[in-house]
């Protein structure tokens, strides 16, 4: 007998549901009589009938510890170790392993087995959680079998208002298998409470957000990018402004995990878009402690504070993606985080040339926040599918568009609003030149990206507060 209670000698693992196991029941009885046999039955402690050594194996502990994938499996064990193994029914093999020469004389020579119950969907993680030291450090919350876990998450204040997927040990283990990082690895201090955030906490919140394990490398990169000081997550969480952290994914991983860069790109309906953005928000809430009404002082907030995540549309090679513009190779996968408080459409159904379209762009962009504001305003201009065609057909590069916008997106000093949005921070030498034109986005900057459906002549502005203390950040996703 070993410490796991699995005896030496002959050990068989079977299940009643398996036709081969039922077929060879007489052979099991022969073995039990001739040599003594421990039989672990995975689904019925009364199978096979009439054998003294049947053990209730429904908890699957023995199957897990023995690494059983197929039933029937016959083992010979010696001093707590496996000496021989036969998988499925092969009469000669069973005879040799057991030393019972005439075993199964009336049975067919061989029959394949069936999958062990250890192979059922999700079972591997259930067994790992139950029978191994998982090495996870988070506090375990034990609830009765009949407890409503979704409700338990609400009661503990862990949700954003929508139900979350309960972070059971099994699900967290599966999520962690989506990346190559150790659960205990610290990724940094999560604002606003500046507490250490580990890979394990990222995995737990990713489970709750509804992520698949394949998203885990993206979620980790998002969490790490959010902690880059220039992004200033603390300010984005704590401000009275409406901004949320916006997540943009570039590169092959966006396509591999099925992210949406096309129609309804900022809307609902895509699991990766929805859950990756939500995972960041849950991390801010649960690890960072950024709770609305407490440190989160937003007057309005915006619906993107549930989740605001999308992939850039890189399908047409005529323009570089945002990530390539920032110096990453085209085959790199990256996440970019920027602040955003909503989506303002630019609707122009009539423009057929870049010059015509620029009129709409200029009027819409200058109006961001306030037509006379030049400070603390930033944006991402999102060029939609049909508008992209206008530029492509005229041979305009993204740099051409930027140059044209730089020329047009200016406001004369004499028009500026008072206060820090306009005149406030300007020195006397600038105020003395009322006709001097200042860039609209002089403190926050603006960026040009592509996304959205291919039918419909729209572009969009994702606006935000923007200053030297609040910058978009980009990070490469490690596999």
């Amino acid at each position: 007998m070993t410490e796991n209670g699995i005896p030496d000698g002959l050990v068989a693992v079977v299940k009643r549901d398996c036709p081969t196991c039922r077929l060879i029941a007489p052979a099991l009885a022969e073995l039990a009589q001739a040599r003594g046999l421990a039989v672990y039955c995975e689904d019925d402690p009364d199978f096979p009938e009439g054998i003294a050594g049947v053990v209730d194996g429904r908890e699957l502990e023995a199957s897990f510890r023995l690494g059983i994938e197929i039933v029937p499996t016959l083992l010979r064990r010696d001093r707590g170790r496996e000496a021989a193994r036969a998988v499925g029914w092969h009469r000669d093999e069973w005879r040799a392993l057991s030393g019972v020469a005439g075993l199964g004389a009336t049975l067919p020579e061989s029959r394949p087995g069936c999958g062990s119950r250890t192979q059922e969907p999700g079972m591997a993680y259930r067994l790992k959680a139950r029978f191994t030291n998982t090495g996870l450090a988070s506090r375990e919350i034990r609830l009765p079998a009949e407890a409503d876990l979704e409700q338990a998450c609400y009661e503990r204040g862990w949700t954003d208002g929508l139900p979350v997927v309960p972070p059971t040990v099994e699900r967290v283990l599966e999520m962690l298998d989506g990346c190559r990082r150790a659960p205990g690895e610290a990724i940094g201090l999560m604002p606003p409470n500046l507490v250490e955030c580990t890979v394990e906490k990222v995995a737990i919140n990713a489970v709750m957000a509804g992520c698949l394990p394949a998203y885990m490398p993206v979620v980790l990169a998002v969490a790490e990018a959010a902690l880059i000081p220039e992004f200033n997550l603390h300010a984005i969480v704590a401000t009275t402004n409406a901004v949320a952290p916006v997540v943009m994914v570039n590169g092959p991983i966006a396509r591999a995990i099925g992210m949406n860069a096309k129609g309804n790109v900022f809307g609902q309906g895509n699991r990766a878009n929805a859950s990756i953005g939500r995972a960041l928000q849950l991390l801010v809430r649960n690890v960072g402690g950024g709770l609305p009404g407490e440190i989160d002082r937003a007057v309005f907030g915006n619906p993107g504070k549930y989740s605001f995540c999308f992939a850039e549309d890189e399908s047409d090679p005529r323009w570089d993606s945002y990530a390539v513009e920032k110096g990453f190779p085209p085959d790199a996968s990256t996440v970019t985080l920027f602040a955003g408080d909503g989506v303002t459409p630019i609707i122009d159904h009539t423009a057929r040339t870049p010059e015509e379209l620029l009129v709409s762009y200029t009027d819409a962009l200058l109006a961001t926040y306030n037509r006379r504001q030049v400070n603390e305003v930033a944006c991402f201009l999102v060029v939609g599918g049909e508008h992209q065609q206008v530029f492509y057909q005229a041979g305009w590069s993204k740099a051409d568009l930027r140059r044209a916008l730089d020329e047009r997106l200016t406001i004369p000093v004499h028009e500026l609003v008072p206060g820090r949005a306009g005149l406030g921070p300007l020195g006397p030498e600038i105020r003395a030149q009322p006709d001097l034109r200042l860039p609209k986005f002089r403190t926050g900057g603006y960026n040009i990206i592509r996304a959205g459906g291919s039918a419909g002549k729209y572009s969009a502005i994702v606006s935000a507060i923007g200053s030297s203390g609040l910058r978009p950040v980009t990070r490469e996703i490690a596999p």
Partner: protein
Amino acid sequence: MTREQVMLDPTAEAAAEQKPRIPRPHALDGLTVGLLDINKPRGDEFLDRLETLLTGRGLAVRRYRKERFSNVASDGLRREVAEACDVVVEALAD
């Protein structure tokens, strides 16, 4: 396999630690008052007026200023204020 269900805590856990506030003084006599300007426009107007009133009552006043209102005060600044002052007034304005 009906058994208890186990969830993992998604929170920082350690954040549950509560530190009590230091006792509030009943009077300001003999105390040093720190005035922390978070660097939003016109916060200084409010603090200037407070400084006039406090020094008029014979109190010691020290002025501090964060680099940017949207950034957390640096560890150094926090330590400096904590070491030199008995009470602090932090002003937010616009």
